C-alpha cells in the first residue's frame, strides 16, 4: 500500500509500480487505485519485493509530473439533465452559469469505482459542490453526466445513482470487448463540451 499521494498521483504511481515490478520480474495481480493511495495485490511470497518497489516509487519525483502535459479527452454533453434546475437553485446560479462552470473546468480522472468504467473526475468548481441527493434514483440511464461532492462523472451503464444529473452524452464510456474497456482511466484529463 502506498499512501498520502496528492490528487491525481495515484494513477502515475500505478504505472510506475507496474513498470518497476516488470523490471524486477515480480508478478503483480492488480494495482487498485484510490483517491489518495494505491494498493498492490500480489502473491504471498513477493511481499518483500513489493515493499521495496513501493519504497522506491514513493521517492520518485516523477509522481508529481505536471498534469497539463497530457492530451485532453473531450466529452460532448447535451445539458438537459433532470437536476439541472435544482442544482442551479441550490448553488444560487442560473442554469447557464452551471453549464458555463462545468464546461470551463479542467477535470482529471482521480480513480474509478462504484461500477466498471465509472470514473471520479476531480476539478469541479467549488461553486458546484453539493452533497449527493438525499434520495438516490433507482435508475440512472447510461451516458448521464452528473456531479456530487467534489466530483463529476458519467454513468457508463444504466444503474442506480444518487448524483445530480446535469445532462447526457452519447460518448461510449464502457465496451467490455475493447482494450482497455473503459474510455476514462485514472490520470486522464477530461473536458465537457456543450452540444449546441
Amino acid at each position, binding site marked *: *500500500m502506498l*499512501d498520502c499521494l496528492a490528487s491525481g498521483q495515484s*494513477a502515475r504511481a*500505478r504505472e510506475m509500480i507496474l513498470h518497476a515490478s516488470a523490471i524486477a520480474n515480480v508478478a503483480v*495481480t*492488480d*494495482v*487498485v*487505485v*484510490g*483517491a*489518495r*493511495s*494505491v*494498493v498492490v*495485490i500480489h502473491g504471498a511470497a513477493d511481499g518483500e519485493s513489493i515493499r521495496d518497489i513501493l519504497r522506491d516509487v514513493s521517492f520518485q519525483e516523477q509522481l508529481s509530473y505536471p498534469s497539463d502535459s497530457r492530451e485532453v479527452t473531450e466529452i460532448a454533453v447535451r445539458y438537459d439533465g433532470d437536476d439541472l434546475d435544482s442544482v442551479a437553485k441550490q448553488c444560487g446560479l442560473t442554469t447557464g452559469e452551471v453549464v458555463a462552470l462545468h464546461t470551463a473546468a479542467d477535470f482529471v480522472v482521480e*480513480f*474509478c*469505482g*462504484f*461500477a*466498471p*468504467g*465509472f*470514473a*471520479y473526475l476531480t476539478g469541479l468548481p467549488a461553486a458546484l459542490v453539493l452533497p449527493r441527493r438525499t434520495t438516490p434514483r433507482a435508475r440512472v440511464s447510461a451516458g448521464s453526466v452528473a456531479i456530487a461532492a467534489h466530483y463529476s462523472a458519467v454513468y457508463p*451503464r444504466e444503474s442506480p445513482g444518487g448524483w445530480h444529473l446535469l445532462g447526457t452524452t452519447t460518448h461510449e464510456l464502457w465496451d*467490455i*470487448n475493447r482494450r*482497455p*474497456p*473503459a474510455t476514462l*482511466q*485514472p490520470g486522464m484529463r477530461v473536458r465537457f463540451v456543450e452540444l449546441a
Partner: protein
Amino acid sequence: MTLLIERVGLTTVQDHGRSGWAHLGVSHSGAADRTSFQLANRLVGNPPQAAVLETAGGLAVRATADTFVVLTGSECDAELDDRVIPHCQPTVMRTGSLLRVSNVRRGVFTYLGVAGGIQGPALLGSRSHDTLGNIVPLPLIAGGELRIGTTYGNPLGVDAPMMPRDTDRVGITTGPHGDILHLDDRERILHHVWTVSAEPNRVGVRLVGPTLQHQFTDDMHSFPLVRGAVQLTPANELVVMVADHPTTGGYPVVGVVPPSDVDRLAQARIGARVTWEWKSI
C-alpha cells in the same frame, strides 16, 4: 459434451476471477469460496482455474455424455436421477442423467465441478459472473446449455477429508485505518460475538456487534478495496469484502481478513455468530 440447464435456481458460473482491471472499477470476482472451488477442480482432474457452477440451490442439469462430476463447498441435497450422491466424491454422471442440487445448508455456496471444465467465451480474461459489476460471460437460462471441455482419462482422485469449516472464529489483522479505532474499540471487537446481519450475497458479509467509540470523519478519501478488507460503517457494522466487492470505498478499512478465512466467512449464513481473533502481521 454439454450440460443442459433444466433449472438455474441461484446459480452462477465462476472461475479464478479477473485480475488487472481493478483500476477501471472491475472487481476480481471469481468463486466466493476459493478453497472449495479449487477442491472441486482437483477432484475431477481439472486445471485449478477451470470454470465451475456455484449454486445456492435450485440447480438441475442434464449430461449429454458420460462425465465425472463432484460437489464441494456447502452441504446440500444432491440427487443424480433418484440416487443421492455423496459430497466431495467424484461421481460418474451417465448420458441423459439429471443432477439436482437443492437445500444448500450450513453454508451458502455449493460448487459443481465437471471434468473438462465449463468452456465458452470469457470477458476480461474470466468466465466469472460478477454480480455487482454485472459482467456475465455465460448467462444461465433454463433450456440453455454449457459446453464442457475434453478430458483425458479418469480423475485420479485425491485425499479430501471433509474438514469442519466453522465460521465461529475468524482471523483479522489491523487495516490501513486501524488507528481510527478508539483504544478500547479493539477490545470490544475481540470480546464480543458478532452476528452476520445480511442475506448471503457475493459482495460483502455484513456483521453487527457492540457499539464502538470511534469518531467518524466525513473527509475520508475513497480508498482501494481488496477481498478481505473490513470496512467500518457509520451504522457501526463491519463489512467484509468478498468476491464481487466494489474496487473503492468511502468507509475506513479497520481490518483485513486472511484469504482462507474469507473463504469460510463467504459461506456464513444470516444469523451466524463470529468471534474475531486478532493476528499480527
